[in-house]
């Protein structure tokens, strides 16, 4: 059992995902992507939207911890 199994897995996973992401953006330039709303047809719009949404969800969730997080035995007290 190698010590850095997870690290190396993470690295190769990151590499492939980045390649796939780049390909998807390039694909966008090869054809006209029809969407229900015209502004969503901008190159890479879903990619941009996905990235921003994800960051927003995580950071807002993290911030909400201030208000929503209590100790594990909160309801037992």
């Amino acid at each position, binding site marked *: 059992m190698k010590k850095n199994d997870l690290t190396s897995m993470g690295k190769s996973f990151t590499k492939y995902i980045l390649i796939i992401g780049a390909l998807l953006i390039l694909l966008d330039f090869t054809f006209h992507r029809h969407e229900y709303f015209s502004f969503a047809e901008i190159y890479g719009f879903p990619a941009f939207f*996905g990235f921003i949404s994800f960051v927003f969800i995580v950071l807002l969730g993290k911030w909400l911890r201030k208000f929503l997080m209590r100790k594990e035995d909160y309801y037992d007290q």
Partner: protein
Amino acid sequence: MISNIIPGLIMILTSFLLPTIPQYFRHPAMLLSVGLSALSLFNGYGTFLEWDVLGLNLILYQSDSLTFPFSIIFHIAAVLVIIFSWHSKNLMEHMATLAYAGSAIGALHAGDFFSLFIWWEATALTSVFIVFAGNTKAARDAAMRYLIIQVSSGVLLLIGACLLLYQTGNHNLTVLDLTTDFGIFIFIAFGIKAAFPFLNGWLQDSYPESSVTGTVALSAFTTKLAIYALARTFPGTDSLIWIGAIMTAFPVFFAVIENDLRRVLSFSLNNQLGFMVVGIGIGTELSLNGTVAHAFVHIIYKALLFMSMGAVLYRAGTTKASELGGLYKYMPFTTIFCIIGAMSISAFPLFSGFVAKSLIMSSLGGMGMVLIYFVLFFASAGVLEHSGIKIPYFAFFAHERKSKVKEAPINMLIAMGIAAFLCIGIGVFPKYLYQILPYTVEYQPYTIDHVISQLQLLVFAIIAFLFLVKFKLYPSEIKSTVLNSDWFYRKMLPGIGKPLFKKIGLLTEFIYENLRFFFRLILNKSHKFSNSSYIKVTTPSFAGTILISILFIMLLIVLL
């Protein structure tokens, strides 16, 4: 003959017989009863059983194009749960699970509000034993809260049904709207079980407290029964679009910070119900198909995810993210099945979530509802976050594990395998799913626009995850409780109520003591009593005596 038996009833009867069946034959008997109940699927559409009682005509068994897909998936879910729990010897839980699944199937085939009410309460009363079977103090407490909420939903439904009968003379299941009082009662009754915003606390409270196998059963029936009921009675109700949109977006933030992975899945379940509720709110044939398709595939992949976390709980003893990680080495099959469930719920193309969610998104797009469309698009990134990444990442990867654990038992792997097979099968061959939907709509989910758009969203959301982890911005797992809408009745109301009742108690005691003293004074016995050693009399305050005296005098004046 068999065509006149209410589907699901045979499962309930079998559940009562389970204690008399030897341990080894219990699971085969349970499967057999589900199989017999499933024969009803071949009956076709129509009304098969009515019962005149107390001057009411109850439709106990009817089926149509809306009940059909739900009935199929409820039977499938029952089979999955039974296989998944094959190793378990918990008789009470088996009985409750089988009766619960049977009640939910029975409820689908009720043709009027009173029969629906009976089944509605039956699902509550049977499922509470499944929560109870968690067999911890937390589970028992949660079970009591769960029971109160579920029964309240039934009571509201009964009030609505009575008002409906009284005002219109009709009690059959029909399309209602929110301009009538009975409509509102029934709407809220359904809304509680469908976990509407602020009515959702019971779900995240109780489901994660149940046993390894119990949560899988719970995840399938109650909420989807409510979705069915809403689709039947409130299609095209505009407010459902907004309610649904809020349901998709809000649980996402709670899921990010929740530590218990089964609770994360409960938040995720809530978010998925939001998509279905939006579909009902739009109310077109396409969107209602979308709701039914989504409920269908959702039951499978949600059960799969709960099963994988159940297997983790069974082997590792916990589902807390802060104590897990690195299980992929020891539970490789469970890891793969969990990832298949995660990719299905995240709606990757070729997985079942994609072919169902596309229907709802297309109907929104076709209606030009731009805001709701992007709320749901945003929520899709959220689904990927909590169910697609967080669940498999923290359970199976995250960091190396020090102690060894075993792979899940074979029966669990079989159940997960079947569910995973269905997830991919439906994703690759959506036409079989589309064939059983209530309306015949030509729809092609695999257009290049759809696929590329969805892939861009998902892949770049994953890149965002990697980016956040790399820069240490991703919130770490912390042992904690996340407040949810159950806080209102678990903390706030007791917080107000307890001191208030204490004050009221003190006040009544005070008045009582003074009255006692006063009457003794009148009877001229107070002195004797207060001196006696065996009866204690608290001496009232002077102000109290005056107050009571004034009250008494006022009473006399009024009486005279």
